[in-house]
């Protein structure tokens, strides 16, 4: 198999414009003859469904939530980047591109990343036109702030609820198309298989989560916008329902899965409080603009603090180690997420962690409150402070927050070409569901940017190019390929329901999460990964022998929903481990302990690993086949990332 990225010829800055001209167009009158399925209605899916509807295509949109407005994009707090240079501080499309490539540790595609920076500018215009209430200055102009990994203020925000407001903008555009009849919405419906006919994606099989009905939907093209797979770890900042099932089942139908081991561990999350914990809550990275990260200088002081012998306020400045400011004077507390996370782990491993578990560091606002006043800090971060207090019962205005890294965003995903099409013709993947734009690490405020870029500005162009070459005829849903897929889905559900074992789905999920976090989390090594591979296989075998799923298919059955998702996580987890094991280097979110500099920084190997690892499915438990897409860097020079 040859991976053709279909990157257009020509200079970087002109590739997208040239490509937009070169793609085939569909005559407006013919667009109504095509049907497109969009799975997932977060930023990438809702914006795609709405825009494709605007263009005149017939769209069917699916989500497992009760309303498209609940997709997990809603929880993004900090902001969205755009190279508007409204602040006149030296920003440009090229600088945003450069920061993103460098921030991603040179493991993303130049052409995709440049296009992302290019259309970022249009996204803000689009959202403002929809009525998204971004923060404003007193003169009525848009306000900006800076974010981790950047030295310019290019982040647009809506208090600490940027994701919510952007999603509501996309949801409103979607609603408009639903009202017009151009988009048909299927909430509480989960995709359980992809249907491929003659090598082309021609539809999906879904389960109605209320009635359990297994249904087929046919279309000319299928767009997956189903988000990331961070819930493999059980504890993560993802919504509880976020899952990999649609993408994973597409993978099992032939779509390659790229760079699965790149998991972003976000540095500013509320630490775990106990065994009962169901998920982790992220505190916006924007907090690091004003909050200072520190731990006690010695393990001895940290221990006394943990035992309650001294209070935070008893620790004098001289005994505090502002380790990010000390080690990275140029970026300070605003170093990228992988660097901040790894350093938090390092100081905790040294015994200098705080909180009952010792797995936390301080994020301190005392100096900012002294400098700017309580009112200013409260206006900037008030809702985040409230959220923190609700969860921890501690007032962050009076004592520093405790934070610790947690699984947040997955940079890997389905392999796509420049058109966002997977290697299965007619199957597209957008937003977090694909692998293409962030490399091995994602900078702050760039996930929202990619979701909306793909949905509003990329897929509407590129999908036309594919459809223009297709006949209008649809594959009927009584085609054998649909029937076969339906039968497979029904058989799998029946199997899950018939096991009647002794262990719950959550028990298996937590066990998997534990294996993943310990061995394929913030730091990995060959020994741990080899162990994890074996442990996951064994757990999967136990799952299919001993899981307990109550109820029947023909009803609202949340246990069955979870069981299907965990069954897929058990397979995906193994692939993540496989990928981490083969990549003998450290880059971004993938930190292999064997490959580090004397200063504990990630040691990349550009000679041997400057490629996308795209895995082909060959059966559960079988060795997957590795395909490599070489990454060519013609416009940036690969340098060791340094934030010193």
């Amino acid at each position, binding site marked *: 198999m040859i991976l053709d990225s279909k990157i257009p010829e020509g200079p970087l800055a002109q590739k997208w414009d040239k490509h937009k001209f070169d793609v085939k167009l569909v005559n407006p009158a013919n667009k109504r003859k095509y049907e497109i399925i969009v799975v997932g209605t977060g930023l990438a899916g809702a914006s795609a469904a709405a825009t494709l509807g605007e263009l005149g295509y017939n769209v069917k949109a699916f989500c497992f939530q009760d*309303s498209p407005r609940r997709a997990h994009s809603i929880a993004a707090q900090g902001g969205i980047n755009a190279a508007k240079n409204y602040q006149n501080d030296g920003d440009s499309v090229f600088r945003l591109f450069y920061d993103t490539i460098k921030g991603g540790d040179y493991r993303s595609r130049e052409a995709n990343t440049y296009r992302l920076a290019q259309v970022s500018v249009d996204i803000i215009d689009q959202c403002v*036109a929809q009525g998204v*209430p971004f923060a404003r200055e007193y003169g*009525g102009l848009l306000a900006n702030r800076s974010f981790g990994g950047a030295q310019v203020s290019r982040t647009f925000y809506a208090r600490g609820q940027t994701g919510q407001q952007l999603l509501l903008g996309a949801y409103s*555009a979607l*609603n*408009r198309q639903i009202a017009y009849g151009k988009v048909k919405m299927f909430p509480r419906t989960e995709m359980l298989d992809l249907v491929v006919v003659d090598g082309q994606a021609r539809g999906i099989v879904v389960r109605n989560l209320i009635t359990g009905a297994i249904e087929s939907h046919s279309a000319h093209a299928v767009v997956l916008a189903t988000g990331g797979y961070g819930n493999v770890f059980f504890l993560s900042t993802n919504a509880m329902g976020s899952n990999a099932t649609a993408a994973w089942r597409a993978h099992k139908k032939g779509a390659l899965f790229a760079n699965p081991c790149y998991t972003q561990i976000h540095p500013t999350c509320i630490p775990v409080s106990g065994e*009962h914990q169901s998920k982790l809550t992220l505190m916006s990275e924007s907090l690091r603009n004003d909050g200072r990260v520190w731990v006690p200088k010695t393990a001895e002081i940290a221990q006394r603090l943990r035992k309650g012998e001294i209070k935070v306020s008893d620790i004098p400045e001289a005994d505090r180690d502002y380790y990010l400011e000390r080690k990275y004077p140029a970026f300070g507390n605003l170093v990228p997420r992988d660097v901040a996370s790894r350093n938090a782990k390092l100081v905790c491993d040294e015994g200098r962690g705080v909180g009952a578990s010792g797995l936390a560091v301080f994020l301190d606002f005392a100096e900012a409150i002294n400098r700017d006043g309580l009112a200013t800090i409260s206006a900037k971060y008030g809702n985040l402070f409230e959220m923190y207090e609700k969860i921890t019962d501690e007032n962050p205005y009076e004592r520093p927050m405790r934070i610790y890294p947690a699984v947040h965003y997955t940079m890997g995903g389905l392999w796509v070409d420049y058109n966002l099409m997977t290697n299965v013709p007619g199957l597209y993947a957008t937003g977090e569901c694909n692998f293409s734009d962030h490399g091995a690490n994602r900078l702050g405020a760039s996930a929202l940017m990619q979701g909306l870029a793909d949905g509003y500005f990329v897929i509407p162009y590129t999908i036309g190019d594919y459809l223009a070459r297709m006949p209008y005829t649809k594959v009927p849903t009584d085609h054998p390929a649909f029937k076969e897929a339906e039968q497979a889905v029904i058989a799998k559900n029946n199997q899950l329901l018939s096991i009647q074992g002794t262990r719950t789905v959550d028990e298996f999920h937590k066990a998997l999460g534990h294996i993943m976090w310990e061995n394929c989390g913030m730091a990995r090594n060959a020994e741990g990964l080899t162990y994890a591979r074996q442990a996951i296989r064994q757990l999967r075998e136990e799952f299919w022998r001993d899981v307990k799923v109550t109820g029947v298919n023909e009803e609202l059955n949340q246990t069955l929903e979870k069981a299907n998702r965990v069954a897929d996580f058990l397979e995906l987890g193994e692939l993540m481990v496989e990928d981490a094991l083969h990549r003998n280097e450290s880059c971004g979110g993938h930190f292999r302990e064997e490959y580090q500099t004397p200063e504990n920084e990630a040691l990349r190997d550009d000679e041997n690993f400057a490629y996308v690892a795209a895995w082909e499915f060959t059966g559960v438990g079988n060795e997957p086949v590795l395909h490599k897409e070489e990454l060519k860097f013609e416009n940036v020079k690969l340098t060791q990332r340094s934030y010193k």
Partner: protein
Amino acid sequence: MDLTLKVWRQKDRNSAGQLVTYPVKGISPDMSFLEMLDVLNEDLLRSGQEPIAFDHDCREGICGMCSLFINGRAHGPERGTTTCQLHMRHFNDGDTITIEPWRAAAFPVHKDLVVDRSAFDRIQQAGGYVSVNTGGVPDANEILIPKTIADKAFDAATCIQCGACVAACKNASAMLFVSAKVSQLAMLPQGKVERQTRVENMVAQMDIEGFGSCTTIGSCAAECPVGISLENIAMLRREYISAKATSEHLA
């Protein structure tokens, strides 16, 4: 903490429901209310019983998916808090807690504590948007919005569409929810063009869905987890009257 839960169990939309009593033991005050239900559900599963179906997703207080009528209050006893952000430290050892689904004719029960809130989506589809296609829009800074207006619009825009306002209202009115969207867009220059048709259509759809009338008692705002203000209802009324008095759609 040991607690006694009385939970509404209902097989599906067409079946009768009833409160069923479950004792739960060893609850940590640091658990969220939903984590407490997770613990109960794991126990039920292990003993071969059907777990309790309830809606939840982000568990960060923002997606609006969680619901639950707890001891007669939407999202429980804490002000300004969604059920997922309600922690057990607000209850006492030995408490009996009654847990019911949202009660409103326009929100039929799917199962147990899960209700159908799609009526809210249909109200949004009736006009809760600015009609603008993707691309071809002006530069964002060409639309100047005073900070005070942007902030006020934002306050209205924070509605999470959870339905607590309907659940808290004696008439099961959706006025607070509808008013939040109407106010947000009526305040912003982008939304002004369609403000009359928007308010007329959204209010009409609200009636079609079977929500009750608003008598401005204010329990909606009192129970709203994100603090949507009653001012929005005042604004909705102004918008509606003004639209009805001057609109081209005079009926």
